[in-house]
């Protein structure tokens, strides 16, 4: 019984971690340019397909390849699509990223086909490990560890480094930051590159967990992470991570708690929870200061 509870908790934390990382990547970009980036999902997907492409290479090469592709695409989309739109209102940016996301997704479907492909990345991680008499899948533990490491690195970067401070300043008040000498292009490109790294990490972990690839897999994951960023509080990075984590973890816990007949509806209950949270706190759990337009 108690073992079961611990296993479910580990499951919940590992899924929650994936959504937290996804929501964080989205929240980072929203912070610096008020863009809700649908195309974040395509970074995940493209990382997955890169792994497939490099399947015969050593694992390390495949992983590095996946990360490089995600960063490159993130930077390219910033340069080609989002930079010309900088300063446009959030709805225009939202639609632009929506279009971009579908453009990448449909181009992918056109070139590699829309059929689901099986893939086995990191088969070593399928093993079970035993800690204190409780069995865990190694992959789940690795997911949690990777998330903690990335969160640590990100928070070190944001709090302790020069560019991190600039990024936080830009997120709080972009124009003021620019006046004080923060270079907009650099900070925004950097944010995109980091979101690429986060997306690649999620892509690799998600694909090794699910074992399949299809052009629209990213969007389904990101759609849930979006909800996480909203309940966490748009514009707040901590909020994004917490919101993403809660949504992901709640899905798994409900799966364990709900009676058999209701399990397939578990996401409905998650969304009901979301509705309740939004009714009580429309600005999210951890609202960002200064998001509302000042006049």
């Amino acid at each position: 019984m108690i073992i079961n509870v611990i296993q479910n908790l580990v499951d919940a934390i590992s899924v929650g971690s994936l959504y937290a990382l996804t929501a964080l990547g989205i929240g980072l970009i929203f912070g610096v340019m008020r863009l809700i980036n649908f195309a974040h999902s395509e970074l995940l997907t493209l990382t997955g397909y890169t792994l497939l492409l490099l399947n015969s290479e050593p694992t390390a090469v495949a992983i590095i390849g996946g990360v490089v592709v995600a960063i490159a695409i993130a930077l390219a989309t910033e340069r080609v699509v989002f930079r010309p739109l900088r300063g446009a209102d959030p709805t225009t940016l939202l639609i632009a990223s929506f279009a971009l996301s579908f453009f990448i997704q449909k181009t992918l479907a056109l070139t590699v086909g829309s059929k689901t492909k099986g893939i086995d990345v990191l088969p070593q991680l399928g093993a079970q490990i035993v800690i204190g008499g409780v069995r865990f899948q190694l992959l789940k533990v690795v997911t949690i560890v990777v998330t903690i490491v990335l969160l640590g690195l990100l928070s070190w970067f944001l709090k302790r480094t020069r560019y991190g401070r600039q990024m936080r300043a830009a997120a709080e008040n972009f124009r003021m930051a620019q006046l004080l000498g923060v270079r907009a292009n650099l900070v925004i490109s950097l944010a995109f590159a980091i979101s690429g790294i986060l997306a690649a990490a999620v892509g690799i972990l998600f694909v090794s967990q699910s074992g399949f690839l299809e052009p629209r897999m990213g969007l389904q994951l990101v759609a849930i992470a979006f909800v996480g960023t909203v309940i966490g509080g748009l514009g707040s990075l901590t909020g994004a991570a917490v919101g993403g984590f809660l949504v992901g973890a709640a899905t798994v816990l409900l799966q364990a708690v709900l009676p058999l007949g209701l399990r397939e509806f578990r996401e409905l209950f998650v969304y009901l929870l979301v509705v309740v949270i939004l009714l009580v706190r429309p600005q999210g759990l951890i609202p960002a200061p200064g998001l509302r337009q000042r006049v």
Partner: protein
Amino acid sequence: MTNAGLRLLRAVWPLLSLALVVIAIAMIASVAPITGQRRVAEAFVTLVAVVGLYIFVGNSGFVSFGNVSFMAIGAYVSAILTMRPAAKAVFLPGLPELIKSAQWSAVPAALAGGCVAAVLAFLVGIPLMRLSGIGASIATFALLSITRIGIGNWDSVTGGQNSLMGFPIYTTVWIGLAWALLAMATAFFYQETRSGLILRATREDEVAARAVGSNIHRHRMIAFVISAFFSAIAGVLLGHYLGVVRIETFYLDLTFNIVAILVIGGTGSLAGAVFGTIAISTMAELLRHVEIGFQIGDLHISAPAGLADVVVALGMLLIILFRPKGITNGREMPWPFHSGKSVTTGNPAHSNANGTQVFAGSDLVSEQRPSPQ
């Protein structure tokens, strides 16, 4: 014509001109071969869906990714109500007795679909409309997932992942036209009402509109409910066009298609919804032929399947980058005749009756304020 009559004609001209265009298309289609008629009927279904979306997006200025949920609800409600009772008893044992034994005719079933969606939109709107605009847009995405999970798993009532069949296929060119005209007229007259005008004011400047006492939540809600009704009607028509209702139909691809059409046409005007639909439907039809391929001498040329999707996505991107207000530039149909009177005495930025600027000089006033960035 009398002066008053002329003024009235001029006031409804943006609607009338679009209606004439749509009716002309229907008349041409009615003498076309049967496959052509099917395509035009399909385009009218799309038109109802796009106009339905426009009623909310065009007036409030926020994107909804959730309207396809209402399409799904409309399609399911109407399909279930018009199915043969014998089929229902076998496939949908969980239905209440009253519905299981009933077989409604087309129009009441369609209206029922629209009303169920409208009520749901109201309930969903309570938490949704309280969110900041951009948050609400994203939350509508959740709506899409909710209906997908709900309908897709409620096996005994909706058939779950299975297709619903056994209901009449009635969506012809004329039925499509009738609903399209009704949707367009509703959209046009709504944006002329006080509520529509206030909502448009909040779209232009939320803070200013709030400052003069506009109840933003209420007017967003009104538009959302009307929008849901017509989206549901589009779903009803789609179901009775295809003859099959599957939950997979009502997901991301359809959402993308409808949002893309509205953005390409221009979210700011009813003309945008209509011309966007005409442009994309025509292009999709052309590309369909290219995908099938054609013969030049001995050479068979064909494009890979899925090309149309890529072209629509690319078109949408290019529009946002280079013509952000869409092909209609956010304007309604301009009055085609020169009337010396209003040009000499009017102020340079004329508005037509629905509050959207129609003359070139209006670019000065409709110009976007610099954003906070």
